[in-house]
């Protein structure tokens, strides 16, 4: 446990601190960059991109060994993965544009073919007599164990550059995600903005390969924005909240994995992000499960209160037990079923409201307003005081006639 705390506070040595910093920055870049993908409704493309990195890793290793190296250079492996991920992305785009395949089918096809090829290449590499194959499988699930100082620096610098690119492109990317037709009419090159968006995703995937692994990097791109959406109704805040969630997940995940090196890093980072998602799903004030249940309860109470008071006003018997319970709890009804003074006042108020509504719906010509009658909304919420006075004068004259 103390090992975990040390790592969390960047006290577990220079290397571990660099790794934690890199994971934080990468997580931030993934959350913020993934937001635009999520808003553009293309989140799954990132899965194809991630799986398409694997053959590139294998080919880069083989090439480096063939030229006499040991095949361990992270930059070399990442460059290879970037090339094959780019090819995978182009393949998806090409299939969607040139054939009748829908995007999800194209993604599935590219993802499985590239991943299959990658696994075959890794198997071939295991049988090679030269090069140092150990550690290549870390690209699947991510690992901090044995990470070199320059690897951690590469991840940190990459994260900063990606966040900078996102900041620069935030306006056109938001515009294109929300309303591509309007963006195009304003002279924004939608195709290029989409490509830039994919470029950001590809960069996150490639930089994150060693740390998070290709199987789970998609989760780090998708979970933070989905979580952030629970907390904000504005795109710009969603992007930065998602960045923060991704950053914290990367930081905690890297620290945890540093204190227990046998654990793969990617799954831990993703589990931390998932924890934030679960909490948001339950507790978000506007969109959470708890808030929805409470809003439903409050609505049900309003319906029963109104129905009960209307029945009282008409001296009809009330049979519904929930209605009786609500009226009693709120002091409108005595235990023996007779209305209290407060109950009588409430009845009178509601009866008058109903009468005003019925007159308004008959005489007022704006159906936009009278259409808001739903049995629950008080008429004073819809009409202005002078209009209510006009309605009341109509009631009075009808009563006189």
């Amino acid at each position, binding site marked *: 446990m103390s090992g975990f705390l040390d790592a969390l506070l960047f006290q577990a040595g220079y290397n571990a601190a660099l790794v934690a910093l890199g994971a934080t920055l990468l997580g931030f870049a993934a959350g913020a960059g993934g937001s635009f993908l999520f808003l553009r409704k293309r989140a799954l493309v990132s899965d194809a991109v991630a799986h398409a990195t694997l053959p590139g890793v294998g080919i880069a290793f083989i090439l480096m060994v063939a030229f006499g190296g040991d095949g361990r250079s992270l930059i070399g492996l990442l460059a290879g993965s970037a090339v094959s991920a780019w090819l995978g992305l182009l393949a998806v785009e090409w299939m969607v544009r040139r054939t009748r395949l829908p995007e999800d089918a194209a993604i599935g096809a590219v993802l499985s073919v590239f991943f299959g090829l990658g696994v075959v290449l890794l198997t071939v590499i295991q049988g090679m007599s030269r090069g140092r194959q150990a550690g290549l499988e870390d690209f699947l699930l991510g690992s901090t164990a044995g990470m070199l100082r320059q690897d951690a620096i590469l991840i940190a610098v990459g994260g900063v550059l990606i966040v900078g690119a996102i900041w*620069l*492109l935030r306006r056109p990317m938001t*515009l294109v995600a929300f309303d591509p037709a309007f963006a195009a*009419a304003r002279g924004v090159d939608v195709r290029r903005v989409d490509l830039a968006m994919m470029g950001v995703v590809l960069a996150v995937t490639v930089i994150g390969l060693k740390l998070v692994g290709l199987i789970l990097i998609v989760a780090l791109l998708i979970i933070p924005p989905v979580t952030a959406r629970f907390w904000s109704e504005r795109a710009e805040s969603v992007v930065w909240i998602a960045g923060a969630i991704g950053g914290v997940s990367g930081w905690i995940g890297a620290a945890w994995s540093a204190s227990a090196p046998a654990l793969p890093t990617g799954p831990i980072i993703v589990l931390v992000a998932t924890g934030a998602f679960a909490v948001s799903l339950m507790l978000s004030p506007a969109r959470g499960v708890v808030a929805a249940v409470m809003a439903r309860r409050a609505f049900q109470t309003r319906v029963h209160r109104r129905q009960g008071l209307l029945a009282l006003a008409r001296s009809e018997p009330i049979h519904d037990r929930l209605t009786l319970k609500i009226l009693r709890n709120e002091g409108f009804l005595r235990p023996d079923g007779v209305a209290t003074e407060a109950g009588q006042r409430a009845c009178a108020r509601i009866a008058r409201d109903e009468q005003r509504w019925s007159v308004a719906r008959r005489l007022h010509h704006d159906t*936009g307003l009278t259409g808001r009658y739903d049995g629950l909304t008080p008429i004073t919420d819809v009409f202005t005081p002078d209009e209510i006075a006009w309605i009341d004068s109509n009631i009075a004259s009808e009563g006189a006639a």
Partner: protein
Amino acid sequence: MADLTLIETPEPLDPASPLAVRGLTVSYGEKPALFSLDAQFPVGAMSAIVGPNGAGKSTFLKAALGLIPKVSGEVSVFGRDADRMRDRIAYVPQRASVDWDFPTTALDVVLMGLFGQVGLWRRITGQHRAHARACLARVGMEDFADRQIGQLSGGQQQRIFLARALAQDADLFLLDEPFAGVDAATEAAIIGVLKSLKAEGRSVVAVHHDLSTVAEYFDHVLLVNLRRIAEGPVATTFTADTLAEAYGGRLGAVQIDALALQGG
């Protein structure tokens, strides 16, 4: 060889017209949606594009804006290439084209209209926000500035789109069915704003589906069904004959007579 007559270079499209096209053909696959269309809208007027479903009305706007490629023809906006006039054209797309659960407020949407001025780098200042709020006020929506757009009614959403176009301070407004599926109050509010734009000397071109209000709202009309059927002032162009030609059997003779009488 002497009896070959030289085909003269055609006159350039009228540079005074906010939007003029000649020989415009647009095709989805190998089925043209518009064929060799000519049109020339007058400046400082309200013009309607009218025709049956699938006649190419929305396609016309999109092609004029360069959103979809044209097979042939030329488009001129105030005598110049539309690509170079983007800041002077405000486009209000059909309401249905947007995800209403998108995390954005009414004010944010209107601020998008300032994209041309704010660009990639500049900060959004209080002045920009004040301008956006003034545009919201012009469509009667200032009290809804901070609402997420999905919480607005269809008519209110359409007003927000119009406010976004207003924020752009353009000279030509292109609207795609601005009155589709909106309530009567919104229709009145939108037409009020469009008339005030016209009073300021700006030009409005709207795809319009409600034949009964063409004569009341618009000065100029383009009747289209794949080709141009007729174009000109509503009073002389929007007649029983042209309507019958544009709509074919889709409108009954009685209906056409009633509409043309209103117009005449």
